[in-house]
């Protein structure tokens, strides 16, 4: 049983106070999810906080693996197309449902582009290209959630929680101050010595027009996770809105709820379970795999938690895939920068100094290296859990809170919608959508009674961060 929660990968950045504050945050996130699954009838809940609920040291360890390269792109494109798409930057404005973002410069809106990577399997990467030669020099990979970096940049205040009226509902008892010098130091290590502190924070409010009003999306002085050193010019931590540490905790918790279809039959199919449960995307590799595996363990009467240190990790690399132009062993091209073998948080791929050949001469599975995506294809991810049978039996089965719609144009496309939204709402003149699994939803969807369970809204996209009038 951990006395406290450690930082991901047991990295040693934190001061004692930061460690305490971070532990408190993880503790709160896990406990919040447990509470959200708990009803007033004393029914068993199969998600637990190991700090509060001790289990024997020999409780089963559960590792759940998936591929680092986005499955959504693999099924949507051919290999070259998927690789190209994975290198695209997407608009942050779009992820909020907004047309465009502006920097509010003394009352004058100046258009600004903030972007995130199209890499949604809890692993992101970015090549570094030599400006003079155009040669790729290295590819860096990270699976660090943005929350950790926000915690360094802004301290514990950034994680205060409020209700819709702005009243505080949770804050850490250990107040941790922002640590800009640590932030700058780490950024300079991982993105380059040119990084300046001002680059990492919003210099002005970032605003947008929403339904005819100006709203503030990010406040002046707030940490900017989409800064250039973490997007266009480097990669320090993950940027995709789905790649959140808290999302992983919420997903694991939500997946402990057994679900039944409209006939009362348990839902065991992986895609059906994702479509029903209100977490994640049906076409990602990570969400369905994590959800279905967790739920399968629960159906075996086990309770689950995430193992300390809570994090998402690069677990294994197919080192055999990497080969120099003269048959050299490519293992030496890898450097684990943060974390350790089996729990890698940051790794870099580059030809060692003095090798005498460029990175583009390296072969990945026999193919000359042209993009970081080829390297990512050889990485496997994992999260680690602990499972234990408390003898409490199976939690009550609940009906679906969401459902899936299938595009009739591309039947490989599935979208998860909340229980009250019909597939028809997705229809466009050229494309109709139909219920993917009608048997899941024929009965009333209990969306209101179960809304707490289905709420996996990522922290960085909470309405409170974008809802205020300027």
């Amino acid at each position: 049983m951990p006395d406290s929660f450690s930082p991901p990968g047991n990295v040693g950045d934190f001061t004692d106070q930061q460690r305490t504050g971070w532990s408190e945050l993880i503790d709160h996130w896990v406990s919040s999810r447990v509470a959200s699954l708990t009803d007033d009838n004393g029914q068993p809940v199969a998600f637990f906080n190991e700090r509060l609920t001790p289990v024997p040291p020999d409780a089963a360890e559960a590792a759940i693996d998936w591929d680092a390269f986005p499955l959504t792109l693999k099924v949507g494109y051919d290999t070259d197309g998927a690789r190209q798409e994975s290198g695209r930057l997407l608009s942050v404005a779009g992820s909020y449902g907004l047309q465009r973002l502006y920097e509010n410069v003394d009352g004058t809106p100046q258009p600004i582009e903030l972007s995130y990577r199209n890499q949604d399997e809890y692993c992101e990467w970015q090549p570094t290209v030599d400006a003079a030669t155009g040669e790729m020099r290295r590819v860096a990979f990270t699976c660090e959630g943005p929350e950790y970096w926000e915690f360094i940049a802004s301290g514990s205040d950034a994680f205060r929680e409020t209700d819709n009226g702005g009243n505080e509902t949770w804050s850490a008892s250990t107040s941790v101050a922002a640590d800009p010098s640590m932030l700058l130091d780490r950024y300079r290590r991982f993105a380059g010595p040119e990084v300046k502190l001002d680059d990492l924070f919003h210099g002005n409010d970032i605003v947008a027009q929403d339904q005819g009003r100006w709203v503030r999306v990010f406040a002046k002085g707030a940490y900017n996770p989409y800064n250039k050193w973490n997007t266009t010019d480097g990669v320090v931590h993950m940027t995709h809105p789905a790649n959140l540490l808290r999302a992983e905790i919420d997903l694991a918790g939500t997946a402990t709820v057994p679900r039944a279809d409209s006939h009362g039959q348990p839902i065991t199919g992986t895609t059906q379970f994702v479509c029903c449960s209100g977490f994640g995307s049906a076409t990602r590799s990570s969400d369905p795999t994590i959800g279905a595996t967790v739920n399968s363990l629960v159906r075996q009467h086990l309770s689950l938690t995430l193992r300390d240190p809570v994090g998402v990790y690069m677990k294994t690399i197919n080192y055999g895939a990497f080969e120099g132009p003269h048959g050299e062993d490519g293992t030496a091209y890898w450097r684990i920068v943060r974390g350790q073998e089996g729990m890698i948080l940051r790794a870099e791929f580059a030809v060692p100094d003095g090798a005498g050949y460029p990175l583009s001469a390296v072969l990945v599975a026999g193919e000359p290296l042209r993009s970081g995506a080829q390297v990512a294809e050889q990485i496997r991810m994992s999260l680690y859990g602990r499972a234990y049978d408390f003898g409490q039996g199976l939690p009550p089965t609940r009906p679906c809170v969401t459902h899936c719609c299938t595009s009739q144009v591309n039947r490989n496309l599935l979208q998860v919608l909340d229980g009250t939204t019909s597939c028809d709402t997705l229809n466009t003149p050229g494309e109709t959508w139909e219920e993917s699994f009608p048997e899941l939803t024929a009965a009333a969807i209990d969306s209101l009674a179960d809304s707490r369970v289905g709420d996996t809204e990522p922290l960085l996209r909470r309405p409170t961060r974008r809802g205020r009038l300027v």
Partner: protein
Amino acid sequence: MGEPSTVDEPLFAASDIQGNVAPGFATEEQRLVGLRFKDPADVPAARLLLAQLLPSVTPMSVVFPARKVRSAVARGHLPVSAVSSEVWLNVALSADALSNLGHDEVARLDKAFEFGMGARSYSLGDPREPTSADGSPNPGHRANWVAGGPGREIHVLLTLAGTDAAAIDTRVGEVLGLEGADRFDVVLDLPGVRRDTEHFGFVDGLSQPGPRGLVPGDEPVPLTTRLLLDLRVGEPELSRPGQPLVWPGQYLLGLPTQLPSDYRTAGPVRPNLPPFAHNGSFLVFRRLRQDVAAFYEDTATLANDLAAKPGFGHITPELLRALIVGRWPSGQPVMRSPYADQPSDEGGREPLNHFQFARAVPAIDLDGRPIAGVGADPSGRVCPVLAHIRKVNPRDLPTDQGAEFRTLTFQMLRRGFSFGPPYDHDNPSGEQNGTERGLAFVSYQASIENQFEILNNKWMNVDGGPQTGGHDLLVGQNSTPGQDRTRTGTLFSDTGQTVVSVMRPWVVPTGGGYFFAPSIASLGALAHGG
């Protein structure tokens, strides 16, 4: 039971599709012959060879009815003389060969095919060291491969099959006597036998996907015989126990593929396919040497060690081997008979596949034959996660690759056969046991990257796929630095669990290649300069 639901299933161009892709030759005698052009860019030589082979390439339209005849003979409905003694032939080409013939558009469909098995050997887990610890050439290293390594690449792979080895000999002789034969070398000549039992002593080839689609005739007939089982909507439709029906675009280009949310409806045809590729299929050939003595010695030692551990006293070498394979030598799955090779009294092969892992299967009645149901084993307590049949076909389990429907899309049509003499267990030091033996692994699929290489790289060779719990001890390769190629996995008993590890390879890849088996029309275009 239900009526065969063949609505919307495509009608095959049976005279255009090579017959070993579907329904598969499945004759007892088989032979692979690999040809390499002395000048790889000798286009006239390639055209001349293909033009002479073309008339005897055997299509589905010949093989399908002939296999029906063979089935009738096996059931005693027809005399043995009804079986044709004809030698069948199929042809496949490497990416280089196709490119030289002006068709590099096929290589653009599949990275694995484009770069080839030799170039991807290390990523498949094969050893990097060209010499073994004792200084001898390492047979698993691509430089030492029997065929398919550098300088010994196969440009054209011929599959010959029939009931009579002598007739195949004659046919091979004819091929080697063709006009222009002096312009190519034979880099592979691998005769073998398609037996029920492979060299380690286990009944093989029990589990194959069932391609949907109809073979034309007076009355179109399903390619895959349907002994249909009605299961829940949302689960695959089975043609027989353990054989899911799969849309044929997973094996043949240009046909409907499998959908994620609906097993019964035709999915889209792969977009932007060049016309040349239609009705073609990618072929993987891997020459796998089997070390029978090592398999038996190592499992005996390991079983001994295990039996000394608390909770594992019941482990015998026979049980350990069954756990490693997932089946007993008779083919009886551990899922249905966990402790002994108890022959099924239900008869036939169908019971041997009536199991899943994530969910229990109910008792069924198959044409008047009752087949008992069996429980689920989602965590590998009965059939361990490391078991070969579970590693390569996790059936209804969610996997690291996503939802279980995706497992269906990775399955391949396997057409392998054994080569070399059987191992003589009664005379271990006998001369026969000094001869090389193994499996000519042959599979057809629509994508080598997304089928063969997923199973090989993401499942057999790692401990975390399709579930966490170990490498495929039987055929997996661990090339992780610092782990000495040791395969490990977890076994459970009623009271605990233990990790087993194996260092010696029991199966060594000693050659192979990635190929494309074009339609017969496209073979004609190649032969005549189209």
